[in-house]
């Protein structure tokens, strides 16, 4: 009785949530997670903009003025930050922060964590064609367009 046993994460879950674990996530959960991720990406862009401004202020104090990036630069920066964010979090942790908050996880069809190229391609499709997420509504297995293209799935997973 003195040996420590591994913790069963399911034991800490509510009964009504336990039955949905490992099942395909629905559109509402995924939209909320995507919204949170969007906020995170915006925060990262703002942080970058603030940092860029601080650097300009230090280098050109007399002539300092807030930078005014073009829409193209802004879109490119958004794409780079978003793809990097989703790729790194999906590759390292198996989920983004928004998915972490909503208790979701991205896996392959066999339930394994994504490899880096796989995560990179999925992030690119997500950022390039975000409207594809709505395909979850009509999909019988709750798959978005990027899930269908790259054979991935998003499931409920409340474990850490």
């Amino acid at each position, binding site marked *: *009785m*003195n*040996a*420590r*046993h591994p*913790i069963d*994460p399911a*034991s*800490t879950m*509510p009964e*009504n*949530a336990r039955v*949905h674990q490992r099942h395909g*996530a*629905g*559109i*509402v*959960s995924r939209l*909320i997670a995507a919204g949170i991720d969007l906020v995170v990406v915006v925060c990262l862009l703002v942080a970058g903009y603030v940092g860029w401004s601080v650097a300009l202020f230090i280098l050109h104090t007399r002539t300092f003025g807030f930078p005014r990036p073009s829409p193209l630069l802004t879109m490119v920066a958004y794409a780079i930050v978003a793809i990097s964010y989703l790729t790194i979090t999906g590759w390292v942790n198996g989920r983004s922060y928004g998915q*972490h*908050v*909503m*208790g979701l996880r991205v896996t392959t069809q066999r339930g394994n964590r994504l490899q880096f190229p796989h995560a990179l391609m999925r992030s690119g499709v997500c950022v390039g064609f975000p409207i594809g997420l709505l395909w979850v*509504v*009509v999909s019988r297995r*709750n798959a978005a367009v990027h899930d269908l293209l790259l054979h991935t799935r998003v499931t*409920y997973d*409340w*474990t*850490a």
Partner: protein
Amino acid sequence: MRRDVMIREAGATPVDDRVPDALVGAAAVIVEQVAGAGRLIARVSGPGARLLLEPPLIPWGRRPARLVEALAVRGRTERGAAGRALDHAVAALVPAVVGRLARLVPLTELIQQSIELDVLVAGVDLDAVAERIDLDAVAARIDVDSILDRVDLTSVARERLDLNALVRTVDLDAIVSTVDIDAIIDRLDLDALAARIDVDAILDRVDLTNVAKERLDLNALVRTVDIDAIVRTVDIDALVRTVDLDAIVSTVDIDAIIDRLDLVALANEVIAAIDLPGIIRQSSGSLASETVRNVRTQSIEADRAVERAIDRFRRSRRYRSDGQLPGSAAT
């Protein structure tokens, strides 16, 4: 009358025998006549002889009859002596003569030709003869063994004896009590005998349950059993699967068991074993706060609501396209 008979018998004899027979008949007539004359003389002279021998008025000792009596005594004495001498002579001569005759004369053939043995035996009272025989002595002289050697007793017993009736009269218990059964058993090949026994048929007729209850000391028997070896051969998993554990548990007084447990100590051991602080850290570290849980739960319910709405929409579309009620089977 007798003479007529004799004459008739003489007439019936052969001619060659008439002469001697006539001579014998003449002699017989003479002897008869002489005897008649003698009896007449004796009858006539009897009173005179008695008067002569026993004259009256003379004393007994001086009567002539006394003399005759003395002579008679002397005569009997001499006759006895002569008889004894004759007996001695006969005893000495007869065996020799008979032996000589036996050698000269075939007596057996003579007897067989001359004597009708059947007629002779028919006239014999054999019962009386048998009563006079000492059968014990006769039986003692018989060689029974040689007789038995020549008799087939087996066939005699089969044909002449009612063995069943004979056996019913036998006291088998008394016979068996005299038998040395141990010696018989030592001579038996019990293994071969046992191999011929249909043990299954015997066991079918035996109530082994009653036998075991009444005859066996089950406690002593069980003490000799290697229960560990038996248990190792038992598929306990399969055995347990056949047990209705629900029925067993329903009979258990769980309250009494709980009363006997030190729940506080048990809870402390469980908490130490499952690393409860680790669980708490994990729950808080995974944003499993009450708010996050509620958001997640609400989102899951919203997902299911959207899925149900989509399903209803699909069914209604199918109904409109196929003209069927939603959920009804196609006909």
